[in-house]
Structures are given as structure tokens and as C-alpha cells.
């Protein structure tokens, strides 16, 4: 299981790398969304492995609410650009 967590963190580095480069704001937004989902998944896996209900609850909440925030940002950005 620790191998799985290691691989997940490695995959998490890819969108972080994209965010750190200078790119279009939309690409950056998509990368941030990916980071949000992946962090929540890492949280869930760690919680299940450690058998900790509360951390898992936080993971589920991050999974749903974190994406909602990026959604709002996208709407705002469309209003600014259009």
C-alpha cells in the first residue's frame, strides 16, 4: 500500500509541475482542479490504510467542496474575460 501512496504522490507532481510553468490561465485552472482531486484521493487512501474515519470524512468533503471552489473561479473568469 505504501507503494501505491508513493505512486500517487508521483502522479500528483505532474499537475503541480504544469502549474509552476508559465501557461495560459485556463490550463492552470485545469491543473489546479486535477491537484485538488488527487490530493483528496491521497487523503482517502491514507485514511483507509490507517483505519481512520475522521480523516476519510475530511477527504470526502475536500473531494466535493474543493472542486466547487474551482468551479466558482471558472465562472468568475468567464465573466471577466467575456
Amino acid at each position: 500500500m505504501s507503494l501505491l501512496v508513493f505512486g500517487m504522490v508521483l502522479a500528483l507532481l505532474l499537475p503541480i509541475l504544469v502549474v509552476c510553468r508559465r501557461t495560459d490561465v485556463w490550463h492552470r485552472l485545469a491543473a489546479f482542479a486535477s491537484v485538488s482531486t488527487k490530493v483528496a484521493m491521497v487523503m482517502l487512501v491514507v485514511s483507509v490504510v490507517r483505519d481512520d474515519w475522521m480523516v476519510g470524512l475530511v477527504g470526502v468533503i475536500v473531494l466535493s467542496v474543493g472542486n466547487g471552489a474551482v468551479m466558482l473561479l471558472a465562472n468568475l473568469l468567464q465573466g471577466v474575460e467575456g
Partner: protein
Amino acid sequence: MSGALLADAPGVLAALAQGASAVLLGLGLLFWFAGSWPLLGRASYLTKLHYLGISDTLGSALMLLGLLLRFQREWPLLVLALLSLVVWNTIFGYVLAACSQPRRRP
């Protein structure tokens, strides 16, 4: 003979579930890498969104299924995560795609 086989059935089932969950987890990780890799390239924004849909929605769903097979004790949490992940992430891809288009004047 068959009695021994029947008595051993839970063990066999558990081993099968372990193997299947390992396969699912590995496949999910593979989807993550394969779907995130095009982000580094020079593809168009919408194409990247297609790949992100693969990696984040489908790959994560596979991982959650693998976890569900392995740890049955926390199933309500995992089922909730699976539901919210699939629905929410899909709609999220739609919102990102729709918002990146310039708004049309009616």
C-alpha cells in the same frame, strides 16, 4: 473433499478479492499517469480536459473500487466518495469546458 473446499471458500474468496483490488488499484494509478501526462504537452485546452476526465474521474473511480474490495468496514464513506467523485468531477469538466468558451450574445 468438497467439504474441505467449502470450508476453504471464504479464504479463497478473500484472496481473490485481494488480487482483484490490487489489479484495480494498479489500473487506477496507470490511468492517473496516462491521463495527467498530456497536461505537460502542447495539446489544446479541450483535449487536455478530455484526458483529465480519464485520469481524475475514471482512474480515481477504479482506485475507490479497489479500496472498496479491500476494506469493507468503511464502505459507507467509500461509496459516498465514489458517488460524489463521479458525478461532481464529470460536471466539473463540463463547467470548465463551457466556461472557457466565450459567452455568446443571444
